[in-house]
């Protein structure tokens, strides 16, 4: 476990039983600042965990804390400093995004003028432009998800809970939303707990991943632990792909050609060397670089591997 000294949230033997189902079963987990992914199938207990962390639902047994505050007794203080984007639709159709987000900012205790200013800023940051003055009934799913994110961020929380933010989005919308979440965690400096039932999409944005299943902890570790061994860089150039591959191979790098993409294995001992080599090779050969991105090993593989073994209790 790699939680920092002041964890964003921590649970201790957390159990929640409903009359018919056990949603959380002795869950002990902690996460530090940054972007934390919470992965599990539908019904794994993700939404229940968020409701407990918000102080809205009391656990059957065990305890939980958020930003050092006890969820059982300090729910109000927690809800003052965190944001929440629910999984379900929550936007009234007949008012505009601006009005809605201003109102929600006021509900978080911002004075009206500050609420207006923050709402305009936040809507711009999530990428809603002129549409924000139109009634939300006519919005696309992508726009609706952005408004939902904006209302969770408008009061500048220290931590935000995003429940299935990519639900219902097409691949492009999914990418945009994930990039936005990454920005919230890095550029905005707001810690994020994001849930998903898709493991693959979280690897790109999370620093830390928690996997739960049937309310039990399967695995909790930093992304780099999942994927360190197989980190690669994907390079796409307009022409001269062959030359580049030869040059890099000549320099001692491991290169694979996948269609139009070159995949270069990052040296585990000296990652900087690989990046420098790619940069120098592209520059020396005078190639037009189309794409350069980090690739990680798929979390899915790790997940399959760990489910096959005994779950970590």
């Amino acid at each position: 476990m790699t939680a920092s000294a002041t964890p964003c949230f921590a649970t201790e033997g957390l159990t929640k039983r409903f009359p018919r189902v056990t949603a959380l079963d002795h869950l002990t987990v902690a996460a530090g600042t940054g972007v934390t992914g919470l992965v599990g199938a539908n019904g794994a207990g993700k939404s229940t965990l968020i409701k407990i962390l918000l102080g809205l639902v009391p656990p059957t047994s065990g305890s939980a804390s958020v930003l050092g505050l006890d969820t059982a007794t300090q729910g109000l203080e927690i809800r003052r400093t965190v944001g929440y984007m629910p999984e379900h639709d929550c936007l009234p159709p007949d008012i505009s995004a601006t009005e809605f987000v201003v109102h929600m900012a006021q509900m978080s205790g911002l004075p009206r003028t500050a609420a207006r200013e923050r709402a305009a800023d936040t809507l711009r940051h999530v990428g809603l432009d002129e549409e924000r003055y139109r009634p939300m009934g006519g919005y696309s799913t992508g726009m609706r998800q952005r408004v939902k994110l904006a209302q969770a961020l408008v009061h500048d929380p220290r931590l935000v809970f995003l429940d299935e933010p990519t639900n219902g989005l097409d691949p492009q919308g999914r990418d945009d939303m994930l990039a936005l979440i990454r920005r919230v965690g890095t550029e905005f400096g707001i810690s994020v707990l994001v849930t998903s039932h898709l493991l693959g999409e979280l690897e790109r944005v999370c620093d830390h991943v928690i996997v739960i299943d049937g309310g039990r902890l399967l695995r909790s570790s930093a992304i780099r632990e999942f994927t360190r061994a197989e980190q690669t860089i994907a390079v796409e150039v307009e022409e001269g792909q062959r030359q580049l591959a030869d040059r890099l191979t000549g320099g001692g790098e491991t290169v694979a050609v996948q269609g139009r993409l070159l995949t270069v294995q990052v040296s585990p001992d000296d990652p900087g060397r690989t990046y420098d080599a790619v940069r120098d090779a592209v520059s020396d050969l005078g190639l037009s670089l189309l794409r350069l991105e980090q690739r990680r090993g798929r979390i899915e593989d790790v997940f399959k591997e760990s489910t096959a073994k005994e779950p970590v209790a």
Partner: protein
Amino acid sequence: MTIEPTAVIHDIGYRHYDGVRLGRGRATLALGVQSLRGVFGLGRTIRAKIMPLLLAAIMLMPTVVSIGVMALAKQFVMPYSQYAVFMQAVIAVFLAAQAPYLVAPDLRFRVLPLYLSRPLTVNDYVVAKLAALAVALFCLMALPITIEFVGEMLIDMPMPLHTGDFLGALGGTVLRAVLLAALGVALASFTPRRGLGVAVVIAFYMFTAAVSGLFYAVLASTGRDDVAPWALLLNPFFLVDAVQSALFGTDPATGEGYPPGVASCLILLAVIALAVTGVLLRYRKAAS
């Protein structure tokens, strides 16, 4: 990677908010004020303004007539304390049209979890909504009699001012606003559908008015004059009128008289308590 033109806008950095953060009370107040404005259609579409403003205008019509009669015929025809009973159908329609607006959309579009993920509690939410509707109803009912009273003061009448009747009517208006708000929200909050909510509230009013009238007529015609007045209390407007005449000494709107004042007061309190408890329980359930 292609460069999107919007990237320029996105690159304006994120700024943290370090201004003032008000407490729960102020958030509740903001919700109440927003709801109150919404009841009269303020900050909403033109279509949403038509109904409340039309009904408010209808409420003023007897005032206009009454002031006209006072000015021309020097007669006082419309006692303040009986205004609400006289206009009860209009008030009931206003309640039916606006109570569902306050609660149904938040249930139907599942906005409630967003409120509850903030410092607001379920009780704060319910209090804000009830208070907004009560204040709205008070304004609707108090404005006509206040204008009429101002008219009476300005017109030189051969008789003394009906100040006691006016003040008693204002007191009754407060009670009526609270009772109707509690009943309206209680009935409307049980369905997330606004149209159904409107129907339920208006049906409730018509049912109580009809049953009250029917029982009274049957009991009176069979010689049970001792029990007949109790039947009147089934109608919320007569219930408040009974309490108003007991507490503030105004003349009963019906010439028949009411059961003892203490009983009416207790019934009024019980109905309000029951309705508010119902709303709170309903929202506790919705919140979990």
